[in-house]
């Protein structure tokens, strides 16, 4: 009997440029209907790692990649990139709404993939904004420019925009790094709610957040996944700086 794999499996993944090894021999399992968190210091390769899942790394021809990322057991490169990206959504580190109305931001994704009636589209926009916990704040201003929203509202709009195409996996790259504690709290509550319907991949610097919301935590350090449970690994000098992360991870 083979072991039930995760919804995403990373196998011996290497990503490099001509000058720099960014990810080295990464193995990782993303479990379905859970909040899978990746932590690690700045520059350790977290964003690059999750961008290999939806092949966004292909927008940068300088990045060379080998090894495998499997989605439902099939290499991501064997999917049509369009359907792969619809099924694995990404919320970026910095809020990046389109310079358009709130409505058009959320409707952009669904309109790419389907011909929809106005009523159906209205319904998708409504449901996505509700799921992202933004609906009550913007229900009367759907025609307002997204750029006029606060940073926290913009980030929740980006979450709504990602949810609108009904992905299976929602990846969030430090979604709260530019937000105040209240906005942050709202997004953390949201992540725990979303795990019932979606698979969440969270990247964060924030150890407190990782401990609050995660079902599993992986530590990425210098492009490698570090097994922070193994004491002898942690004694190795090259992980000196990672200790700061690990101490806080220990429950």
């Amino acid at each position, binding site marked *: 009997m083979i072991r039930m794999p995760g919804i995403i499996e990373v196998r011996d993944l290497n990503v490099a440029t001509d000058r720099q090894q960014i990810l080295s021999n990464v193995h990782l399992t993303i479990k379905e209907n859970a909040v899978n968190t990746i932590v690690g210091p700045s520059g350790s390769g977290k964003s690059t790692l999750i961008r290999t899942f939806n092949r966004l790394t292909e927008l940068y021809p300088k990045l060379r990649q080998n090894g495998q990322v499997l989605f439902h057991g099939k290499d991501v490169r064997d999917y049509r990139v*369009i359907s*792969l990206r*619809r099924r694995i*959504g990404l919320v970026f580190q910095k809020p990046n709404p389109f310079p358009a109305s709130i409505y058009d931001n959320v409707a*952009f994704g669904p*309109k790419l993939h389907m011909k929809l009636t106005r009523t159906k589209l209205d319904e998708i926009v409504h449901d996505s904004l509700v799921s992202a916990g933004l609906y009550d704040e913007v229900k009367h201003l759907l025609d307002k420019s997204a750029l006029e929203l606060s940073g926290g509202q913009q980030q929740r709009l980006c979450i709504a925009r990602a949810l609108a195409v009904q992905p299976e996996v929602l990846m969030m790259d430090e979604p709260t790094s530019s937000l105040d504690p209240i906005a942050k709290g709202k997004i953390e509550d949201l992540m725990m709610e979303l795990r019932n319907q979606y698979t969440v991949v969270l990247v964060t610097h924030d150890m407190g957040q990782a401990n609050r919301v995660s079902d599993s935590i992986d530590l990425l350090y210098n492009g490698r996944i570090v097994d922070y449970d193994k004491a002898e690994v942690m004694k190795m000098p090259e992980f000196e700086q990672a200790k700061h992360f690990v101490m806080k991870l220990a429950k």
Partner: protein
Amino acid sequence: MTEADFPAGRDLAGYESKYDRRVISDMIVRIIGYVILAFMSGLLLAIVGFVALKGLGVMTVKMLTTVGNTQTGGLANAIAGTWELVLTGLLLAVPVGMFGALYLSEYSSRVSGGVLRLFVDVLTSIPSIVLGLFGYLVLVIQLGLGYSLIAGGVTLGVMMIPYVLRISEISYSNIPRQTREAAYALGADNFQISFRLLIPQARAGILTGVLLAVSIAAGETAQLLYTALFNNGYTTSFLGQPVAYLTYVVYYSLQQNTVYARSMAYSAALVLVTSIFSILLVSKYISRIR
């Protein structure tokens, strides 16, 4: 100013003299700025004032509404012909400029982009009389289009391409990378990114480029001398008829020795300057709001 604003004692001298030098160099820069500004506004005022003075004195409603032949009659055919030529030029310049710019900013490789940019730059630097000659030899003679709206408009359009293209390119490349990535991450393909994100986002910039091209094209003469010729009446088809245009009236009627012909030239100049100014004002307004 209180004592506390400056360090006390010996240091004070050095501090103040440095401060003075900065004030003086600041003042020199500002004076040079004012001189240039005064010179430019004087020049502009002189040209516009001259045209207005000469033009307004002889301008009548009849001048604007009747057909003329550069000696007698009015400017109506030349006004209509100018816009017909410019609009025909746009039919060529807008698609080529808009999509050429999209290709340059999004999809070109370093080599193909470099080559295209070089072509565009060379095109900008070709003297307009040479373009006119090219239009004459290739369009009028070789392709047998004759003196026509097509021949004149296309020759004018070739000259407009670089303006539309370069300004569109700037407005595409001003769209942040993160915005594009957001669209890619939702599963958009290149075609959808172009038509649903980039072109709508850049439309104010594209329009600014179009208006600039229009304002320059409306004032061109040399491309049209050998391709549009002139028409004593209205031009009603793309082929088979030459076309009247305002710059020709300015150029030709001014050389005539009747007072009326010269007043036609001044009126034509005034109509041109007023239209071009209005177009530029509109384009300034558009680039301000977006």
